[in-house]
């Protein structure tokens, strides 16, 4: 995907030989242009390098061979390879000129040349590895016999060479895999979010436009959508736990959808669902349905309070109320589905109704 964004910090500005400006083959002029300095400075540098066992001359020939001329096709692979070898030799000569020992410089030249080759492709990689191996062997051979710590020299030389060869490659692979995975996760998340919004918010908006003449219906749609979106954005661990909290959430949502009356639900604590707790949920659902159907209220308040010894559910409306005793006559919904249910579960139901509203209070002692 975006694997091409990674480059080893070895990349150099693109240099082309400038044959028109140049004195010999345009190498110095080309380098000067890409570095944005005067060509004389570069020429002076090559001349000084030439004093170090002729390193400057070898480097010049190497650069001539490897660099493309301006406006002409790139040199052949073979020419570029030759140029690189010459450049490495020139670097080695220069280091010798600076006074570094032969036993260090030539193995280093082999290793560096070999590493360059391993980065160029399959066939030269084999050659490159061979060069690195030769470099290491020569280094060990040259430095053995001196009184230095021979036992450590050999393995550490091999280890350093291996690190130089494999390190950049392993690094690049790791970076590529990371960016690819991040991109994949991101696009998956985006797709999931788009699907979710399409299935929920966009559908609701379409319904709202169609039913805009019925304010009650629009409010109910908005409320359902809000509940769903909120559950997604701010997941509530209790709502997902599958206990009393989740069951009450579902009952409140059902009452809202069936009867179009908003339910303001507040709950503290949670309890696992068993037969008795389920009976409380059913009784609460019946109370909500009654309030929505018969009381004429425009909002139902539900409070679920789970304490250590007792759980309590309050269902309250501000409707016109009813005669609780008359309604409790046999055959009526309240007697069976609220009072009877709570009694069988070992709890209590108190119904307090007046012209200002009704509250159903369900209590159940929790078993130790």
């Amino acid at each position, binding site marked *: 995907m975006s694997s091409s964004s990674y480059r080893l910090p070895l990349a150099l500005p693109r240099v082309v030989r400038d044959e028109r400006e140049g004195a010999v083959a345009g190498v110095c002029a080309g380098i000067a242009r890409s570095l944005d300095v005067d060509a004389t400075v570069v020429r002076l540098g090559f001349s000084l390098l030439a004093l170090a066992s002729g390193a400057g001359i070898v480097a010049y020939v190497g650069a001539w061979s490897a660099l493309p001329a301006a406006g002409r096709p790139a040199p052949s692979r073979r020419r570029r390879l030759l140029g690189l070898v010459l450049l490495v030799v020139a670097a080695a000569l220069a280091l010798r000129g600076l006074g570094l020992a032969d036993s260090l410089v030539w193995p280093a030249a082999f290793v560096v040349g070999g590493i360059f080759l391993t980065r160029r492709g399959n066939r030269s990689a084999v050659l490159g590895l061979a060069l690195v191996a030769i470099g290491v062997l020569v280094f060990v051979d040259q430095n053995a016999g001196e009184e230095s710590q021979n036992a450590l020299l050999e393995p550490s030389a091999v280890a350093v060479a291996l690190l130089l060869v494999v390190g950049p490659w392993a690094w690049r692979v790791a970076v590529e895999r990371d960016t690819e995975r991040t991109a994949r996760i991101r696009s998956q998340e985006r797709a999931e979010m788009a699907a979710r919004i399409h299935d929920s918010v966009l559908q609701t908006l379409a319904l709202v436009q169609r039913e805009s003449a019925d304010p009650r219906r629009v409010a109910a749609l908005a409320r359902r959508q809000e509940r769903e979106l909120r559950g997604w954005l*701010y997941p509530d661990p209790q709502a997902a736990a599958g206990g009393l909290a989740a069951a009450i959430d579902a009952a409140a949502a059902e009452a809202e959808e069936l009867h179009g009356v908003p339910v*303001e639900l*507040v709950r503290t604590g949670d309890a696992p669902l068993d037969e008795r707790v389920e009976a409380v949920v059913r009784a609460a659902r019946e109370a909500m349905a009654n309030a929505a159907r018969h009381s004429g209220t425009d909002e139902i*308040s539900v*409070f679920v*309070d789970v304490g250590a010894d007792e759980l309590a559910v*309050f269902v309250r409306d501000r409707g016109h109320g009813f005669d609780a005793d008359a309604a409790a006559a046999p055959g009526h919904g309240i007697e069976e589905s609220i009072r009877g249910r709570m009694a069988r579960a070992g709890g209590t139901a108190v119904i307090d109704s007046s012209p200002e509203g009704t509250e159903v209070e369900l209590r159940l002692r929790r078993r130790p």
Partner: protein
Amino acid sequence: MKRVVLVDDHDLFRAGVRSELGDAVEIVGEAASVADAVPLIRELDPDVVLLDVHLPDGGGQAVIAQVAPERPGVRFLALSVSDAAEDVIGVIRAGARGYVTKSISGPDLADAVRRTAEGDAVFSPRLAGFVLDAFRSGTPPVDPELDVLTAREREVLQLIARGYLYKEIAARLHLSVKTVESHVSAVLRKLQLSNRHELTRWAADRRLI
């Protein structure tokens, strides 16, 4: 008439609140960000700031933190669509006098503004539920004065959670409305000053402390 500044980053919502409040209060200024709100409130010195919990550049508690020290007379009422307890508790602990949800009706909101301006604490049923949860016994209290609700305070909060108004609570508990209000204010004070484990954890998770 109470002077109100409205801070919310949604233009549509501000317009809706303005028209719903109508002539009940005087809206003297509006801001859509923390950066705009802070100098505006300093300049206008309103009675009440209606404050969105979520603002793009820091949230309601950032406004309170920058304004409250110099303008102790300005009272803040949080207004939010968020259900997340830590957001609500966070803005209350920063100094807001109460919290109402954005689904509140116009007359109820006007009443909440008036009560906030008079120094009362405004607890919606939802906030009462959060507070009961936060003070639920579990860890032993460090400072009993601040870390535990009295039986009466708990009773008042439970009635708020059940949907009762202050005057209904007063009638039910045979108290005056003033006494109910002072219980709620005491709970608000505990909420803001307590170092109870659950409260600090909620706030710390959101880097509010």
